[in-house]
């Protein structure tokens, strides 16, 4: 009873403090033969007249409020382009869906889950909302979700719907670092990795993850991919759970900073074109 009281006393959950609209629906996956609740957040800068950025978060039931809060704040202060945030639920099946191989705590369903996102969920979202249909989506994951984010980044780029990845506290330990094999396989068949990638790791996450995190960073940087924008950060003073919110914020800042620069250049160009036309008239 004392232990339970102690634990209850220290429990804390993120409250939803967003400006914007939320929706929820369920999608049936034929590929996985399971139902997934989908939590949707349309922030104030979502504009149905233009093609918005799609941000997909994993562990929907656990992370929707937390990430929606961050995006709401960023949307209000203009630090994120017009977007829609979708969190995929059924988090209690994360050991099945987010793990690339069958191993202790994992069932190796990542490939199926990737095809579910690519061939079932994203087309459904594109039919319901105004979303950029190019391969410009963003994927956010923590822990096993971070492992799946890495797994997805190392899938073939030609038909990969994502080009922005945010991984926090990736479970590098899983299957003795099997994710490194996916990284190696990717580099055998590709000469470039054209993505914006943020990876964060808590400084108190233990030796296996700290060392693997550094190894992955060094490996990716040494590949000399010309179009890889990578930012990896050790998040001081935090363990596995505590890194998520900080990492998501830093990650969203980073992966959209390139887009923001591109947008700024585009806006300057549009403004210049507009002024030129009027001047010549």
């Amino acid at each position, binding site marked *: 009873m004392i232990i339970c009281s102690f634990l209850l006393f*220290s429990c804390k959950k993120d409250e939803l403090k967003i400006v914007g609209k939320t929706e929820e629906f369920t999608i049936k996956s034929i590929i996985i033969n399971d139902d997934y609740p989908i939590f949707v957040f349309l922030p104030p800068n979502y504009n149905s007249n233009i093609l918005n950025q799609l941000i997909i978060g994993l562990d929907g039931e656990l992370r929707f409020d937390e990430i929606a809060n961050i995006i709401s704040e960023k949307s209000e202060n203009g630090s994120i382009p017009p977007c829609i945030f979708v969190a995929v639920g059924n988090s209690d099946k994360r050991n099945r869906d987010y793990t690339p191989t069958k191993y202790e705590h994992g069932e190796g369903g990542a490939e199926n889950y990737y095809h579910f996102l690519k061939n079932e969920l994203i087309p459904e979202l594109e039919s319901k909302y105004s979303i950029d249909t190019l391969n410009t989506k963003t994927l956010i994951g923590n822990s096993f979700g971070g492992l799946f984010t890495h797994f997805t980044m190392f899938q073939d780029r030609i038909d990969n719907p994502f080009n922005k990845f945010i991984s926090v506290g990736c479970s590098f*330990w899983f299957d*003795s*670092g099997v994710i490194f094999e996916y990284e190696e396989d990717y580099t055998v068949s590709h000469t470039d990795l054209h993505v914006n990638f943020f990876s964060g790791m808590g400084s*108190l996450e*233990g030796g296996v993850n700290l*060392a693997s995190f*550094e*190894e992955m960073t060094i490996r990716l940087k040494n590949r000399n991919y010309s179009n890889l924008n990578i930012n990896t950060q050790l998040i001081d003073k935090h363990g596995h*759970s505590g890194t998520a919110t900080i990492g998501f914020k830093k990650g969203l800042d980073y992966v959209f900073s390139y887009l923001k620069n591109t947008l700024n250049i585009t806006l300057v160009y549009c403004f210049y074109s507009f002024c030129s036309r009027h001047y010549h008239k």
Partner: protein
Amino acid sequence: MFIASIASAQDTTTNNKSIEFGFIVAGNEALYYGGYGKFSMPLSQKKHYFTLGASLTSYFDFKGESTSEAYLKNDVDMRILPNLIAGYSLNFNKFQFNFEIPIGLSIAITKGTLVNEKIGFERDYSNNEVFFNYGLAFTPKYRINEKNLIGLYAFLPLIEDKAQSGYQFGISWTTFIMNK
């Protein structure tokens, strides 16, 4: 003052300084094993009394997330927690209930080498950090004789990230330093 000092000298001293040792399991995301030592002194000779003390706790993670194919060499993953303690002790016949507020530091030390035979790499890692630590402790004890008590120990950290200083549960043995 003379009368007061004589009166004080004639009081029967019932509360004594004590030393406590315990074995604990600790942590939040990972499981650590360790122990603690604590010195306490009573602030009055009442039946229920306030205490002041100091403690040193240390616990270790001996395995981490290593596997047979990816293991840690020369691994240290530990916390050292020096704390000052203010408390209140409730005494009922053979039972004593102690409520305490430890305040101090948590020193995190993590270092070693990851040897990943499956992928084929070795990578050193090292991280040392110091955090402010505080929380609530509860130690119910049973008096087995005039000088010794055995009990349980629980610590609830009130800092936000429990990886800095985790929950602690354990068993304890307390012995009084009897006044002569």
